[in-house]
């Protein structure tokens, strides 16, 4: 066990070192793509803190993202801010999203399962419509920040390190929550909410807290996105595609696990970036994404990492069994199957 933890720590350190070195490669395009990858890692992890841990599938994360985008956009516009100082505003985007999450959660978290999904989609469209119709949001024209007069070779580096910081913070937070009393309550709600309530868990408060935390991280990423993308437009800030993508990332990697959403985002976002460059019609990439979603839900409902982990456990148990059979041989008079049944078998395939 000790050595396993050591290996893990070493692996993480290497990953982090590689991540920190990417902008130093001097490839502007690579850095630019990596910013988006890291943002999706952060967003998928944030989504998982609420939806993955509690089992409430939200398709309204773009509400938080867009709120973050517009909050930072409006502040920079009205205060005429430009340059590095804007980076200090990103937490304000998160704060605004967290504030939005409270009434959003109080309404949506009264219902469960499919109804909850529908409510989150409805709230999402309300926000998108507000962004494109109010005059103070710039309507369909949106808001454009002042031109950033930085060296083109390294212009994305600050964005990169900010995205890395947010992603790592989100991962550490998710890990801290997972093993905490709070995280255990979230997972108890996922398994049987009414029972959790009957054991003294204040379910509404617990769910809402996770929803707000998730919203804060996503909103902060929205703030970063505004300056990185140099625009706040209703269809990109409040993007239904964003909701689907992060949900798919979490499902692909492993819904409700710690590493799953990270893995899913690292796998999927580079593909999306690549696909958008290959085909001029972006809808092709989106159709593929939709199809992928269906395939994952049907064939890999628990995601890649849990499924692979299960297969590995089964394989190890099989090898142990084989080794035991070779070592001792089956007791005389007993069929081979009896030995196999008696030894620790693969973990039961749980209900999907």
């Amino acid at each position, binding site marked *: 066990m000790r050595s396993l933890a050591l290996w893990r720590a070493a692996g993480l350190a290497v990953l982090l070192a590689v991540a920190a070195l990417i902008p130093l490669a001097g490839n502007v395009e690579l850095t630019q793509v990596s910013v988006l990858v890291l943002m999706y890692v952060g967003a998928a992890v944030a989504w998982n803190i609420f939806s993955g841990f509690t089992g409430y599938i939200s398709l309204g994360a773009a509400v938080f993202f867009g709120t973050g985008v517009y909050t930072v956009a409006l502040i920079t516009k009205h205060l005429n801010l430009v340059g590095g100082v804007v980076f200090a505003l990103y937490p304000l985007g998160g704060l605004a999203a967290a504030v939005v999450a409270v009434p959003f959660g109080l309404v949506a978290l009264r219902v469960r399962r499919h109804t909850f999904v529908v409510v989150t989609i409805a709230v999402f469209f309300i926000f998108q419509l507000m962004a494109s119709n109010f005059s103070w949001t710039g309507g369909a024209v949106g808001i454009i920040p002042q031109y950033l007069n930085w060296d083109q070779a390294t212009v994305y580096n600050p964005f990169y390190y900010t995205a890395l910081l947010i992603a790592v913070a989100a991962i550490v937070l998710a890990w*801290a*929550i997972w*093993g*905490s*009393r*709070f*995280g*255990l*309550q979230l*997972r*108890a709600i*996922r*398994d*049987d909410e*009414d*029972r*959790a*309530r*009957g*054991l*003294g*868990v*204040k*379910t509404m408060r617990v769910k809402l807290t996770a929803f707000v935390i998730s919203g804060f991280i996503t909103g902060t990423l929205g703030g970063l996105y505004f300056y990185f993308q140099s625009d706040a437009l209703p269809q990109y800030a409040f993007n239904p595609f964003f909701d689907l993508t992060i949900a798919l990332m979490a499902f692909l990697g492993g819904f409700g696990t710690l590493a799953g959403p990270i893995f899913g985002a690292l796998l999927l976002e580079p593909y999306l970036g690549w696909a958008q460059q290959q085909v001029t019609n972006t809808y092709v990439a989106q159709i593929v994404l939709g199809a992928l979603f269906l395939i994952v839900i049907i064939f890999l409902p628990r995601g890649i990492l849990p499924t692979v982990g299960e297969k590995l456990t089964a394989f190890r148990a099989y090898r142990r069994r084989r080794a035991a059979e070779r070592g001792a041989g089956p007791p005389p008079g007993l069929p081979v199957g009896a030995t196999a049944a008696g030894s620790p078998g693969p*973990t*039961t395939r*749980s*209900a999907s």
Partner: protein
Amino acid sequence: MTALLRTEGVSKAYGGVQALSGCSIQVERGSIAGLIGPNGSGKTTLFNMITGYGRVDSGDVYLNDTKITSLAPDKVFALGIGRTFQLTRVFSRLTVMENMIVAAHHKERSGQTGRFRNPFARAGGAATRKRAMELLEFTGIAKLAGDRAETLSYGQRKLLELSYVLIAEPEIILLDEPAGGVNPTLIGTISERIRALNRGGTTFLIVEHNMEFVMGLCDQVTVLDYGNAVVSGPPDTIRNDRRVLDAYLGSAEEDDDSSAA
């Protein structure tokens, strides 16, 4: 009035079905009370009304002479009423130990001083884990502590449910069919554990179809029929009561309850 738990004229209808109509029962402190009656007589509904899983239409529930009618389940639990479910409800993807820790939160919190709590504190302190292990040993499933609850057999889940209700040290425990679908050896274990806990001061209210189990364990048995408490008394009286025989055996076409024999 020494009743620890009592209901007064509790009524509850689901759609057109009157599940309870003015049901009044009493459970004395320190006793093991039984609640029997044919299927659909309102036993589980009464449990739900007491523990806050649904609103009472009319009537009241009292714990220690304090009105607790229609309080939310978490509040009822905090006041000292623990319960198990007929179809066991455990957190299937949490380990057995984690199941225990979820139920222990309330207890852990009340032991702390000061307002501030670290929300990221690891779940379950050493004291809680030790207590949880003791209880799991008491119910005989300690060796499963690290396993996910979904891998447990039905009987083991019943024991886990009992264990995690115990960790919160409720004053009274409501058991919904603790012996249902459990093998005879395990039934013996369960009944022995209930007796031991009762000697330690815990009050029980038990719904059960297994007559041998109820009659052997309970001090006081109440019979429910058509949402009403028809008779209450010591097991010997109940066994020979005309109304009980009517309610249970009834006429031939009403007899759909084989386990009641």
